């Protein structure tokens, strides 16, 4: 894939690489530095593997103070910094640059404190998402956001992308589950935002920082909410002959006042691939499959699932199956959670992440099929139906550059469609480099200027995670507008 333009690296900076490495080694120790090419190679891409770039240097700080020293040094010397967690970004959010220092937070992965009374955990941000739940599971608690990459992805990355997951219909996304962060600004200033309580004082800086894709600072610690797990949970599967019926069924369930924990949608190609991978018992003769999970005691689960089944009957489901035991429940979810990997076994794919108003589902699915067909490509659709978050997987052959480019163009058309029907470019994966040049589809130049001025407040020289999120020319165009001393309003 080659459609996204990246700025030319600065030869002068690259020429100073050895001296920079020596300086950084003096600041945080040689052991926290990766200089050799083989070591750096591990950081050249993220989960958007079509784009690769070997970084100049990689630092692995052990403490907030280390991070502050590194950032201050980079700021003083005009060096670009690429913050990185586990490198699972699907939008190129952690793609390095040749003249940049990658600051990888993964060595800072401790749980600092767990407070069950007040239902919070204080952790270093390099901890993996699943490790938080793993630690508090002994007392029956969990950390709610559950992106599919949760076994590998770091909380730092979740904070950067405001990650969601299958269960956020009930529990919300990252921004709803974080109470406070410790963040280092590009000049090395350490700032605490929020704390161990539900509301932070002053402006809602936490909202600006969460989901800012490494543009505003580097978060080193966070206080997250932990919740008591429900007594039990059980999924049911409903198969339909048309996407219309499945979409209408979801709307009817919500209209009836039922809010399941998750409502997942798979189309026929996705069902077949996932079933071949996980043997979950998915029906193979339906066009659309809903996996609906509810929580509570056994009796509550039984009542809710039968209410849902009753509603579903109005839409003539072709198949209906309630999970009979924990083993089947696990397999049903294993199939869904492994969907990306399962598709990856049969083809290279390009994973999209738009969100649409639910009512537009049938129209959008039809159009997605048409768009991909017009580029001569196949597509499998996986969808968080409860909240309208689509994941079309466009299948292509990565060994054919021309086909990869077609996949990229089809993806752009799909995301444009999502915006046209009232949705957005990205529901949970982030903008990164991937959707950077589509931002103008969703936002006016003024909308973008408002965001970019915020970026300038936190990172005046734009050294953090450069060439991501904002179109390159948008920034050129707002050079005057960022000068807050000379407003244009007058």
């Amino acid at each position, binding site marked *: 894939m080659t459609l996204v333009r990246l700025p030319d690296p600065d030869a002068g900076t690259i020429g100073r690489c050895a001296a920079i490495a020596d300086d950084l080694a003096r600041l945080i120790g040689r052991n926290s530095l990766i200089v050799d090419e083989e070591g750096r190679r591990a950081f050249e891409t993220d989960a958007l593997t079509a784009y690769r770039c070997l970084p100049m240097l990689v630092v692995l700080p052990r403490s907030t103070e280390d991070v502050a020293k590194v950032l201050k040094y980079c700021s003083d010397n005009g060096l670009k910094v690429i913050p990185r967690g586990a490198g699972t970004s699907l939008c190129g959010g952690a793609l390095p640059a040749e003249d940049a220092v990658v600051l990888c937070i993964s060595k800072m992965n401790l749980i600092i404190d767990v407070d069950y009374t007040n239902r919070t955990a204080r952790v270093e941000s390099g901890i993996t998402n699943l490790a938080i739940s793993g630690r508090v599971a002994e007392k029956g608690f969990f950390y709610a956001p559950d992106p599919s990459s949760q076994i590998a992805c770091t909380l730092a990355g979740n904070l950067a992308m405001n990650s969601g997951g299958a269960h956020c219909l009930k529990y919300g996304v990252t921004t709803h589950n974080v109470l406070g962060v410790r963040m280092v600004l590009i000049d090395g200033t350490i700032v605490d935002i929020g704390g161990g309580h539900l509301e932070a004082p002053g402006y809602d800086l936490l*909202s600006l920082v969460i989901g800012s894709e490494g543009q505003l600072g580097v978060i080193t610690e966070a206080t997250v909410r932990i919740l008591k797990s429900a007594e039990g949970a059980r999924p049911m599967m409903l198969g339909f002959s048309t996407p219309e019926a499945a979409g209408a069924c979801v709307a009817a369930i919500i209209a009836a006042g039922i809010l399941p924990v998750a409502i997942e949608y798979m189309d026929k190609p996705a069902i077949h691939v996932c079933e071949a991978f996980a043997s979950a018992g998915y029906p193979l003769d339906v066009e659309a499959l809903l996996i609906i999970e509810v929580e509570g005691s056994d009796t509550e689960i039984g009542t809710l699932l039968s209410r849902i089944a009753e509603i579903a009957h109005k839409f003539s489901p072709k198949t209906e199956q309630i999970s009979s035991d924990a083993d089947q429940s696990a397999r049903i979810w294993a199939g869904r959670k492994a969907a990306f990997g399962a598709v990856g076994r049969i083809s290279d794919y390009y994973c999209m992440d738009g969100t649409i108003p639910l009512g537009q589902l049938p129209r959008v699915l039809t159009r997605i099929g048409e768009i991909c067909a017009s580029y001569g490509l196949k597509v499998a659709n996986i969808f968080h139906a409860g909240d309208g978050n689509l994941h079309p997987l466009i299948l292509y052959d990565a060994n054919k550059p021309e086909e990869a480019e077609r996949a990229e163009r089809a993806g752009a058309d799909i995301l444009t469609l999502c915006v046209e029907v009232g949705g957005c470019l990205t529901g949970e994966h982030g903008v990164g480099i991937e959707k950077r040049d589509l931002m103008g589809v969703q936002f006016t130049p003024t909308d973008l200027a408002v965001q970019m001025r915020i970026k300038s407040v936190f990172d005046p020289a734009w050294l953090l995670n450069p060439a991501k999120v904002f179109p390159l020319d948008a920034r050129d165009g707002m050079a005057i507008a960022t000068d807050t001393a000379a407003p244009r309003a007058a």
Partner: protein
Amino acid sequence: MTELLRPAAEWELQSMLAKLASRRQPVEVVGHGALRNAGRVTNTETAITTASMRGITLYEPTELVMSARAGTPLFEIEAELAARGQMLPFEPVDLGPTTGASAGALSIGGVFATNISGSRRIASGGARDHLLGVRAVNGRAELFKSGGRVMKNVTGLDVARGLTGSWGTLAILTEVTFKVVPLPETLVTLAFRNLPDDLAIEALTKAMGTPYEVSGAAHLPKGVAARLNQPRLKALGEAVTLLRLENFSGAVAYRKDKLAEALRVYGTPLELAAEESWALWSELRALSVMPYSRDTSLWRISTTPSKAPEIVAAIQKFMASEAYYDWSGGLIWLEVPAAADAGAADVRRAVAVRGGHATLIRAAPEVRASVDVFEPMKPEAERLTLGLKAAFDPLGLLNRGRMYANM
């Protein structure tokens, strides 16, 4: 005499702000006036109201989403939602009555601009958590949007949510889009009796650690409980510790027994059925237990739940005060005697050493002009705050001095 500007459309608001900008004339931002006695005093010659920008512009019950112009009265929104069996998830608090302004004047724009949520926040999040998108005009007279109408949206910076709690100092909201939820089929309240504050908070935090999805966790010490209108609780003449459950009726019946069982060391609770419960929690939401008075000031303290009783006890060493604990202790409404500084020094010291922050909600205008109404900022946060103010409103036109004296 204050000049009041009443734009009826976004373009009109823009042109009014552009004119004010050219004259460098600061302006107070108001809705229907519910919040005029809260916050710092602005002392401007001109005010601008969103009152003429009203109306629900989108409501999709099956997608749990609504959009409304900023000046739409909250009661109109709640009536429309109730007609379709839905509600706002966070029980917004109308500060009007407790601050001596009129009741029922809160606009939906004011709800999000102040981000003051009620009891349900402990379970389902606050106003900020349910805001999906905004349209707004900043101090540069620029119209912009952020977010949208879908639940999941991480496209660009979360400016919409970032504007919550900014009290109109960054931009004037013109339209807000937010998530709504179904009304519960039924609800019940368990009231534990006569617990001292520390045991009450222990019981509440324990309840929040159960899987029964408690949607309200409040404690009213004896003096505050006596102010309740709810006849059965009032008649007790003692402290009450309240836990709310809402769900389908079968689930509520099951959960209330399990919850009472889990908390049996705190006594046998009184039970309030659906109708009584609705009335009780509406009363709490309206802050009727913290009524307007010139003789007292009102603080709103946000802290870690288990620290709450200590904070209240520490303050009570210095002044007679009455507390109403919500959010299992995470929120304290604290009434103190009216004084030149509304007890700010003692309140803030007691909070600071235990973690949290305090906002002065009700006090005479001269008091709100002389003490910090919002928690004073640490230098690093202040730098960012001033930077944001300058980015949105470089001339400092919007609600100058409303939050902090220097901006």
